[in-house]
C-alpha cells in the first residue's frame, strides 16, 4: 500500500517535471510572438506593444467587411482591405474582448496585396478595429458588430 502510494508520487513528480520542462522550452520555439501586445487587456498597450504607438489616423480607405449583427460571437468573419500604398501590416482588434488584439498580418514581400480575411471571436457587441501600417504611418478604421451570443467565455 505504502509502496503503491510511493509509485504514484514518483509518477506524479515525473509528470510535473515534464510540464515544467515544456514550460521552459516553450518560449524558444516561438520567440517572435509578442506576448506583451497579445496579452494586453487594453488597446493602447496592445497597439504600442505591437506597432510602437497607439495613435493612428482614421482613414476611410480601410474597408472592413464584417456582419452588422453576428448571432454567434465565436465565429465572426472579418475581411480587411485597403488601397493605401506601401502597406506592411494589418492588425485586427475587437475593442471589448478581454485581450483586444486578435491578429496581426505582416506583409514581408512587396507582391502582397493589402487584403486579409479571417474569422474572429467576439465577447460582446463592439467595434472591430483594423490598424494598417503604411510606410511609417498608422491608419485605422472601425466597424461596429452587434453580437447576440458572446463567443469568448462560457
Amino acid at each position, binding site marked *: 500500500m505504502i509502496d503503491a502510494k510511493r509509485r504514484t508520487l514518483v509518477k506524479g513528480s515525473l509528470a510535473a517535471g515534464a510540464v515544467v520542462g*515544456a514550460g521552459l*522550452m*516553450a518560449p524558444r*520555439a*516561438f520567440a*517572435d*510572438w*509578442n506576448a506583451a501586445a*497579445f*496579452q494586453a487587456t487594453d488597446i493602447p498597450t496592445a497597439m504600442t506593444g505591437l506597432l510602437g504607438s497607439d495613435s493612428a489616423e482614421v482613414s476611410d480607405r480601410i474597408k472592413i467587411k464584417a456582419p452588422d449583427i453576428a448571432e454567434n460571437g*465565436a*465565429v*465572426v*468573419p472579418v*475581411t480587411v482591405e485597403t488601397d493605401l500604398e506601401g502597406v506592411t501590416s494589418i492588425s485586427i482588434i*475587437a475593442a471589448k*474582448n*478581454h*485581450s483586444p*488584439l*486578435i*491578429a*496581426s*498580418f*505582416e*506583409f*514581408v*514581400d512587396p*507582391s*502582397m*496585396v493589402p*487584403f*486579409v*480575411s*479571417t*474569422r*474572429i*471571436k467576439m465577447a460582446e457587441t463592439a467595434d472591430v478595429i483594423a490598424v494598417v501600417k503604411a510606410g511609417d504611418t498608422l491608419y485605422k478604421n472601425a466597424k461596429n458588430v452587434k453580437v447576440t451570443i458572446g*463567443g*469568448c*467565455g*462560457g
Partner: protein
Amino acid sequence: MSDIKIRAKLEGDETTVKCLMSHPMDNGMRKDSKTKEVIPAHFIQEVVCKVKGTVVMKTAWSGGVSKNPYLSFKFKGGAVGDPIEIAWTDNMGESQSATAEIRD
C-alpha cells in the same frame, strides 16, 4: 498528414489563397461545461506563408481567432503550379505545415 487545407487560385495577375487549419484555438478563459474546469490555453501563435519557398506573410495570432482558423490573402504575380506553403506553430510548441500548387 496535415490538416491544413489550401486553395490557391490565379485570376488575372492576382493569386488568392484560402486556407483552413484544424485547431481548437482555446484562449484559456473558457470552462469545460461538465467539469467546470478551465480549459488551458491552446492556440496558434504564428502562421508563416511562403510562395515558391519565399516568405510573403507572417501572422501572429491570439486565442481570439476562431476555432479551426480560416485565413485568406492575395498576392500579385504567381504562376499555375507555383507551390504555396502554410506553416503554423502553437503556444504548446506543436506545428504543422502543408503545401499546395496554384491553380487556374
